[in-house]
């Protein structure tokens, strides 16, 4: 700036984007989250792509920390986690007719230290981004749960799969509160299956070999 006024910014051209937009794979398995059990999840393998339908709860660092203190004090949680799925997310506030603002996954690895406590509450699965540590993978296997990933960086696209949102607990935590989301065809990939197979371990290993053979 040289004293001649504020900056002026023109939106960039959209010509660089590919002409074909991403669409959900119509062959992907649809999961009804409200009517699913541990045994229904048995057939899922690390790497499978799914479209989630039904309700999920959200929680990230602060909500996990608060749930952990309530559990350690022997108190009830404000919302039961039994047979629920938890999405690690801190969304942007909605505007106009939006249900929720951009709402992509946050790093699940940070929630590893709460895995034991939360899995003990009877959850069926977790949704986040990035790898889980070896102890959490073992716990997922022992509890017959699953860990799924949404794409980190596709926040606006993911948010369009959320059709309803309401805060159900810890409202004072703002974006870190526990929400209940209703989702329609939310795209995820199984990252840790009930057998304890992890795509973040298997995927890079497989591709490193492929690259070496090239």
């Amino acid at each position: 700036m040289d004293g001649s006024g504020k900056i002026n910014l023109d939106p960039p051209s959209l010509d660089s984007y590919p002409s074909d937009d991403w669409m959900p794979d119509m062959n992907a398995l649809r999961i009804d989250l409200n009517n699913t059990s541990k045994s229904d999840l048995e057939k899922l393998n690390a790497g499978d792509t799914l479209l989630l339908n039904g309700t999920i709860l959200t929680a990230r660092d602060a909500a996990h920390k608060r749930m952990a203190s309530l559990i350690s004090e022997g108190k009830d949680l404000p919302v039961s986690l039994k047979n629920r799925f938890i999405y690690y997310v801190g969304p942007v506030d909605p505007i106009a007719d939006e249900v929720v603002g951009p709402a992509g996954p946050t790093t699940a690895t940070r929630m590893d230290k709460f895995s034991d406590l939360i899995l003990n509450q009877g959850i069926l699965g977790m949704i986040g981004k990035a790898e889980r540590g070896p102890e959490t993978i073992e716990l997922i296997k022992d509890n017959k749960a699953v860990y799924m990933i949404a794409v980190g960086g596709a926040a606006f696209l993911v948010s369009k799969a959320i059709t309803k949102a309401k805060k159900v607990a810890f409202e004072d935590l703002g974006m870190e509160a526990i929400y209940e989301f209703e989702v329609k065809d939310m795209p995820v990939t199984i990252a840790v299956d009930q057998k304890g197979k992890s795509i973040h371990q298997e995927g890079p290993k497989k591709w490193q070999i492929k690259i070496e053979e090239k």
Partner: protein
Amino acid sequence: MLIKNNDIINSIAEALQYISIYHSNDFIQAMVEACNKEESRPAKDAIQQILTSSKMSALGKRPLCQDTGIVTVFVEVGMGIQLEGNHTIEDLINQGVSNAYLDQSNPLRASIVNDPLALRKNTGDNTPAVIHTKLVKGDKITFKVAAKGGGSENKAHLKMMNPSDDLVEYILKLIPTLGAGWCPPGVLGIGVGGTAEKAVLMAKESLMDPINIQELIVRGPENRAEELRIELYDKVNRLGIGAQGLGGLTLSSMLRSKIIQLMPHHCRWRLFQIVLQHDIFIFHWTGQEKLT
């Protein structure tokens, strides 16, 4: 030359709104290139989702990522300029940050907490920004503005190296240990030399440079830093980590890293390395330049 307070406040706010919505063209081009090159199906699918989401953000004027970052600003203040009244540069920038994050047409996520060791109370408007100021010759003031996401920032490393240590070997060992929380494919920023804090700062600032790795490969390296960039680009992508850590060919398809070097102390060279989220929001302007 008098710079008006409101021009600084409004420019910072406008830049932050802009980078929350739009990816830069060089980033989009690098992602499209990565998408075309990628053979791993899950990795390619992830890149396609990111590109489509990004286009939706540009059209809908809403943030690219729910993590709208911690504002980081590099300021170069020309010694010939004068600021109005009695406000510090920090005050003016933070007012711009507050205006941008509370903008009702596109509110951004406030992610900064006060009293981090105890109360951790959200400041509500994403202030304060992290600001680095330098005095330079001339009659203008230049801002480089980034909104840095936590996923990638959490992967930052500082390494005190010995003169005989191998930089490439260290980085290739480190990257697989970082996991996928930085949302690869992404950008590496590397700073070498100086003191610990100087190396960190150089690495961060290197991320503000254009992504020009493909041009560099075509032109050929002209110095040791450029040789290292090409070597790292090739070897890092051969780790097989792929988009989102799912396995694949394109981990850091763009490698923005200009490696910045500074004279180190003779018995030690310092390295700092940041892995940046794919959607680092970078914006840079000087004078009347228009960003298109």
